[in-house]
């Protein structure tokens, strides 16, 4: 029986999720924070229970239009740590690390070079953990689109391990090439999960259907009226 494990590069995963096109950015941010359960995602991918290791920076997540930080990030990490089989690691390293990045203004075309504060330690920590735990898994699912993992995946496959990439469209082509397979999470799980979220979330379709206010149709009269919903599995 093959043993599975999931390794999640959370900043990379989240940034691609909120831009995957299933819905509006703020909806996908709320879905991520309140609904997406990595143990359910792991079950969908592996068909079994398995360990899920989530690596993140304790400072912030995501692009500016969907930034998660402060108490929201703390609350989110507490939530996923409470799920079965999931351990989230804050791999942030003290101190600032700045990197140079070139830019071009979309409006005026001005080109320049700027410094930005980069995240430190996530790729390296996840890679070290992949190698530290090789005795405990046969198949690893790497939830990232980052080409920095290519050397690690290549080495693990040389050692007889199966590493599958999983993420959203437009991953690194080098990573897709090195992985045993690359799973489109949107088609495999996320779209179905977001649809369920839109139905059952707080203030979602089902709750709104059942909840007040209810107005009478024009010209209608009469006292007792019902509005009901039922869910059933078959």
């Amino acid at each position, binding site marked *: 029986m093959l043993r599975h494990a999931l390794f999640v590069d959370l900043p990379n995963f989240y940034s691609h999720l909120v831009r995957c096109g299933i819905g509006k950015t703020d909806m996908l941010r709320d879905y991520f924070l309140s609904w997406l359960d990595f143990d359910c995602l792991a079950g969908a991918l592996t068909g079994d229970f398995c360990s899920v290791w989530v690596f993140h920076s304790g400072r912030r997540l995501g692009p500016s239009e969907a930034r998660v930080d402060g108490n929201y990030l703390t609350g989110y990490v507490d939530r996923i740590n409470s799920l079965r089989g999931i351990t989230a690691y804050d791999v942030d390293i003290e101190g600032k690390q700045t990197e140079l990045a070139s830019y071009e203004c979309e409006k005026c075309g001005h080109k320049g070079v700027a410094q930005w504060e980069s995240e430190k330690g996530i790729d390296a920590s996840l890679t070290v953990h992949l190698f530290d735990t090789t005795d405990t898994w046969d198949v690893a699912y790497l939830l990232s689109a980052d080409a920095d993992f290519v050397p690690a995946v290549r080495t693990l496959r040389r050692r007889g391990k199966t590493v599958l990439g999983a993420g959203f469209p437009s991953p690194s082509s080098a990573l897709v090439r090195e992985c045993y397979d690359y799973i489109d999470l949107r088609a495999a799980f996320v779209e179905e999960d977001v649809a369920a979220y839109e139905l059952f979330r707080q203030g979602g379709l089902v709750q709104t259907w059942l909840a007040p206010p209810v107005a009478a149709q024009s010209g209608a009269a009469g006292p007792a009226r019902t*509005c009901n*919903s039922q*869910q059933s599995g078959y």
Partner: protein
Amino acid sequence: MRDGPGDAPYHRLSLTGAGPVDLSSREQLVRDFHAAFPRYVRKIDPVRATYQFAVSPLAWHSVERRLDAFGARLQGARIETPSAHRGRWTITYLYDPTAGGYVAVPFEPLS
């Protein structure tokens, strides 16, 4: 949509309404959902005020663990959960002349 032989069946969700209540804003929500997720809408029947949705077995795990919290938000609802895989929530609205509109009637079980 995995509907092939051997695949776990989809869960079915039905929304219904009865009586001369104005469901137009609610039906608009269904249309919005249908536009975004057409694969998960199985039936739209405004005449009978009946709408059916499909929830995949993969996504159902996330729903199932939140059903208690979901039911708790439906104040006034009669909630029946015959099994872990079936549920029914019903809310009855009565016209209240004092309030000038319909109000939810809290469910009171027979003693």
